[in-house]
């Protein structure tokens, strides 16, 4: 058994394989925060993230027999959550039109303000992106997918994937700069 799957986790997984509700609840609680952080950055709202989270856990509990226990459960869970989010995106937001990024010559961000921002606020900025930008940014920057993989997953070209990532970064910079401006105005008043 690999060291990253502890004995406690192994016991929980065995219980889940027997469809034991208590084991399933404990596993859910243990990985709730981690799974939710993934789902949040692929969705627009917390409610939507909850839906994907539960769909993902349902897959985990029903397909647990296909999990290779010699591998990291956390990575498997992460993969399932991302795939569930992508499925959700394909279903719900297939025809959404991409926003054009506002023209911005140069964007300046105050580092001290950013340091004071909570993680939730920063993740909310990702949620405010359009779905196409949000997914490309999350897949490429946070989850380490290549542009080829992203293109395949989202059924777009590699060029479109690179372009979307660039525009997503630009959009985030603009949002961060707006936070700076708002914060400056609030302090100056």
């Amino acid at each position, binding site marked *: 058994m690999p060291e990253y799957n502890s004995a406690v986790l192994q016991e929980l997984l065995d219980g889940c394989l027997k469809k034991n509700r208590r084991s399933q609840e404990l596993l859910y609680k243990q990985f709730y925060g981690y799974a939710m952080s993934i789902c949040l950055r692929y969705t627009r709202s917390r409610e939507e993230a909850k839906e994907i989270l539960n769909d993902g856990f349902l897959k985990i509990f029903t397909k647990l027999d296909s999990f290779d226990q010699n591998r990291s459960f956390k990575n498997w869970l992460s993969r399932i959550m991302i795939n569930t989010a992508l499925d959700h995106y394909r279903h719900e937001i297939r025809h959404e039109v991409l926003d054009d990024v506002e023209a911005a010559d140069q964007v*300046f961000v105050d580092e001290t303000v950013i340091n004071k921002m909570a993680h939730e606020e920063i993740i909310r900025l990702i949620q405010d992106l359009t779905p196409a930008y949000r997914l490309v940014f999350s897949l490429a920057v946070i989850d380490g997918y290549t542009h080829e993989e992203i293109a395949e997953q989202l059924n777009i070209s590699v060029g479109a994937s690179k372009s979307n990532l660039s525009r997503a970064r630009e959009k985030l910079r603009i949002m961060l700069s707006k936070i700076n401006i708002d914060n400056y105005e609030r302090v100056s008043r």
Partner: protein
Amino acid sequence: MKEFPDDELDKLFRKSSEELDSTFDPDDWNALKRKLDEHDGKTPSALFKKWWPTGLLVLLFVAGLTTYVLTRDGETENINVSRTPVKSQISGKTERIHSDKLGKDAEKAVESESASDTKSVVKNGVSDSIAENTDSKTGEPKIDITTDKSAQKELVSKAENKKILPRRWSKTGGVYLEPNRSIGRRVDGAFYSKNKTSESLQSEKGSSLKEEKTEFSEEKSNVATHLGNVDNQLRRENKLPVSSTTGDQNNSALTIDLNLEAGQNRLLIDADLLKSRSLIPSKSNKLPEIEKTETPQIIEPIKQAEENTSPKFAVRFGFSPDISSVGLKNFTKPGTAVSLLIEYSFLPKLYFQTGLIRSSKGYNAKPGEYEWPSSWNDQKARPISVDAICKVIEVPLNLRYDISQNDRSRWFVGAGASSYYMQDEKYEYNYAPHTYNIIWYEKEAATGWYWLSHLNASAGYEYRFSKKLSLLAEPYVRIPIKKVGYGKVNLFSTGVWFSIRYTPNFK
């Protein structure tokens, strides 16, 4: 204030994502628990979802069976009710035919028999009425049809209430070839004639039969005379004993039952005797009367039924289990299919059929049967099998031909081609244990239209339980001629349509 480079921006969001830890919400677990219960079939809705196709099949079967039984009973009753008066007329006339045939036949056999022979029959107790009404001019006996009115009424009511039985059943009256038949009981008579029959005809047909009554009476008395002649001749030749309750039943070839009520004659004829004698009626008989009066009443409903079974348009709603596979093996759990089809008859017995079929096709494909996308080649590991569940909309273009048909049911065959629209495809990839670096565990896709991708063939049975509605059972196959879906598989499907067919009346 400084410009924010890409790597710093990425680092900021990566760090926030890793360090974000959402607090557990018990409501989320409760929601998931409900989903798990539903998935494991522990809720009523899950049970319904799991069993509704089976339930629907059972309901259709029970409904069909009930309808079949009810309509069959109703049909039998209708036949009995509608045919009773006709039958009484036919039976009366049939007796005449048989009487005529037998009478003439007997006349040929014993041409020189005298009137005294007739009286000897009377002495042996054939019938008092026959004996007492011997025609003074011809010397032939006549049957008295007006002697006892109350007895006549009773017999008429009995005749009217008498249930018509199929020909194959015993004790139905008429002449039948059954040698050594018991004659001890009245109901076992082979030829049962009543001298009140013409009276019952009169009550039903009215005055139009008055002339016929007289004629019938005369003919009947002729029959009695001839039978008497035959009887006497045979008796003289020691071939035919006159029957009585203690008579030798086994040796009798042609007997007249003497233990009947007054006014009833019964003739028992041996099969061998019947076979040995000609039953061709003489030219003087008036047989065409029967044809003229009865034929239209019997043929007319059949014509109507034929017209009703040949409508131009029909609509069909059907349900079927959908059994799909790749390469005629590895059949998995059946999916379901529902159909809404319209049919148009452009030639007699030939229909054009089209519509929509929505089906859920589940199948399992092995590596050689499933095309691994080339863009997935960055994953070295390959699945050992793929489980798929595809929602498919099918547009069939079929021809249906009725190979045999009667007023209630028909057998048919169908053939054609179908186009598939792959509406929703879900694939799960199964890997061997200890397979690493797996990227693709599952895939959802919707690859769209595959025009004329399958050939159709079917055969079925249709039972019509009303003018507009009928039930059908139709086994079918879908044979692939094109590969379909994300994995490009040769998807074979089969099942049995259980359909209800509605035939609207366009005026």
